[in-house]
């Protein structure tokens, strides 16, 4: 009796492209300023909001982003991805600027919503022939480090001059988001 049809003999005992996969994944989230600013802004906003948002937002973002990336990898189209990414930078910048304090559920939903666009863009841009697992590890680690950077920057929120600096940074992120939006719509 034949075995399951997809069960085949091992073809090779090598793992090609692993370092390239990890490094490509690590570099991918920081290859676009729109992604970088949005992810750092998530960390900064979380720091402004304080616990539990300070860790809940950076936990939500990678998981929902990975879901978006999975959807992108599977070839499911999502309209307006670039516009969504630009709006995410714009809105997150405004939220940091305003030191907005919505209910926690709203903050989580908002960050999760934006993460889908970022993830989908990454998912559809992933190069063929890389080690999927190592790429994913690099990708998630880089994203998490950007959030951590945002949180670290946000720690200056405890000082009044730090709060002003963070709001100024939020204004710059919002302006950059506006620029991304104009470019995406052009």
């Amino acid at each position, binding site marked *: 009796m034949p075995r*399951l049809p997809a*069960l085949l003999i091992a073809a090779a005992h090598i793992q*090609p492209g692993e370092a390239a996969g990890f490094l490509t994944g690590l570099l991918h989230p920081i290859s676009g300023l729109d992604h970088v600013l949005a992810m750092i802004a998530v960390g900064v906003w979380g720091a402004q909001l304080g616990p539990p948002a300070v860790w809940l937002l950076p*936990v939500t973002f990678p*998981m929902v982003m990975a879901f978006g990336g999975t959807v992108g*990898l*599977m070839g499911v189209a999502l309209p307006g991805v670039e516009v969504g990414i630009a709006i995410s930078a714009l809105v997150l910048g405004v939220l940091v600027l305003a030191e907005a304090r919505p209910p926690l559920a709203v903050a989580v939903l908002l960050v999760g919503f934006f993460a889908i666009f970022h993830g989908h863009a990454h*998912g559809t841009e992933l190069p063929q022939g890389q080690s999927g*697992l190592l790429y994913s590890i690099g*990708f998630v680690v880089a994203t998490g480090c950007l959030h951590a950077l945002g949180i670290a920057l946000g720690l200056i929120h405890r000082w009044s001059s730090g709060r002003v600096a963070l709001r100024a940074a939020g204004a710059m992120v919002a302006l950059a988001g506006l620029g991304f939006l104009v470019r995406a719509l052009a």
Partner: protein
Amino acid sequence: MRTAVGAALVALFLLPEEARAHLVTTGLGPVYDGISHFALTPEDLLPVLALALLAGLSGPRYGRVALFALPVAWLAGGLLGLSRSSELLMPALTALTLLALGALVALDRKLPLGLVAGLAAALGLFHGYLNGTAKLGALGLCGVAATLFVLVALVAAFVISLRAPWSRIAVRVAGSWLVAISMLMLGWRFRAGG
């Protein structure tokens, strides 16, 4: 309808695929191949880390159970797998394992001791079996089991030793990263045109 959906899920997640790349040899012999296995095979390393984090978060009793259940089950599964004639890979199921363990770490809920022991045994049997089919060999499996013991001991003990509230949160964040990685693994598995 339910049968069709069930069959589709089985086809998507449980059917094995062609082994394109799995076992890496060091050239130093089977024991060292086993010892270095986790450094070269992240698809085995990540679920082990997830389980060790979970056991550490749950407390010393859970850590002790995982410390012994996982290597023993891994060894048993590996010895079972050695009798197979061809290498078996189940990347989607491996990703789902990681997804479940990462989610449990991220949620940080108190779990029954028996459940954690069962998870350790199931993880060990499943991944050990896959290692066995990859012809790691009995000596290699012993190397794997020894490394597992040390790995789980170090990670679980480290997590148990954490006292600051933020450090427990950091472990939960690591769990969320594992969930994200597992979801991307699934995406790669079902990549359009891939």
